[in-house]
């Protein structure tokens, strides 16, 4: 039911826009192409940034660093109430949407989607985003080079999100 509503949200907006174009008195199609052109320019401007960022992330994924660091952190994670199975997800989440989706899918298939670790992972996956990607894209799209306190704040929020998710799952699904 909810998924149907969500799946319909996008087509509904498209239909609404179509209706406006059909009934409206102004030349709304011209407005569409004008807006689309602006959007296209922004997207193209992002390619140089994405080229650098995705190359670095691709290197990181190929290096095997995530598996290694996850191995080191495993004992510490258990001690502070974060299931150690979550580590590959937590280490990839800030950098890469595709790598963290892969880590999440892998985790669900290994420990089960409704195990404690699976539930914690689901809540974290649903309430966090690819911090480095988002801030880099947002800032470089308007030519900002100095991001000031954006990264420290975003990482602090993400860290809080991890602990809070595990804590909430512990009492919610007890």
């Amino acid at each position, binding site marked *: 039911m909810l998924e149907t509503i969500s799946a319909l949200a996008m087509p509904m*907006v498209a239909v609404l826009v179509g209706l406006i174009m059909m009934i409206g008195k102004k030349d709304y199609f011209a407005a569409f192409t004008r807006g*689309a052109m602006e959007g296209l320019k922004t997207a193209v401007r992002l390619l140089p940034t*994405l080229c650098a960022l995705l190359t670095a992330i691709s290197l990181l994924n190929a290096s095997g660093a995530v598996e290694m660091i996850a191995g080191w952190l495993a004992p510490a994670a258990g001690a502070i109430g974060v299931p150690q199975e979550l580590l590959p997800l937590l280490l990839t989440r800030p950098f890469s949407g595709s790598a963290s989706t892969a880590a999440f899918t892998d985790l669900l298939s290994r420990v089960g989607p409704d195990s404690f670790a699976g539930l914690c992972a689901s809540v974290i996956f*649903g309430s966090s985003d690819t911090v480095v990607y988002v801030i880099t894209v947002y800032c470089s799209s*308007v030519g900002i080079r100095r991001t000031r306190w954006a990264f420290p704040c975003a990482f602090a929020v993400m860290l809080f999100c991890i602990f809070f998710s595990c804590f909430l799952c512990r009492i919610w699904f007890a």
Partner: protein
Amino acid sequence: MLGKIYGIICLLALLFGIWNGNAAALGGAVIDGAAGAVQVTLSLCGMMCLWCGMMEVLREAGAIRRLSRLLRPLLRLIFPRAAQTGEGLEEISANVSANLLGIGNAATPMALRAMEQLQKHNPKPDRASAEQITLAVLNTASVSLIPANLLALRRAAGSPQPYAIMVPVWIVSVVCAALAVVLTRLIGRGK
């Protein structure tokens, strides 16, 4: 800052790659990364065209103005300067709505347009203004009423109750979004 992050990631990757004996894979990864950037840009081009075009139609028809008037009480708390000048408020409203509806690929175009509008009032164009930082960090908390992607992945993994995590996800993302706003604004006030 972006340069530093790029440098740190590359250096880490090289050290770990050699250590793990994956050095041979790194060469391929460089090429994949650069090619991947083109793919991401291509799909982003489509999304940006579509959503920025639709946004322009909705703006001309006055729908976005109505939406932003609806969200104004909330947005005035989060983006006081933008609420005062009015610049960027419509884009921010569209971004917040797209996030709430779970239309993730519309949220990015709206946010990028909002960044452009906020940039007009940015006294130093090469560094982020306080409200731009709040907008960016807020978008990393991903508040969504229906986390469709997550539900699909849980269902695909064979969960008998994919929805069980909905309320905890709402609680965590709302708390994290509030924390993002409070944190960025507290630091912004001190500077």
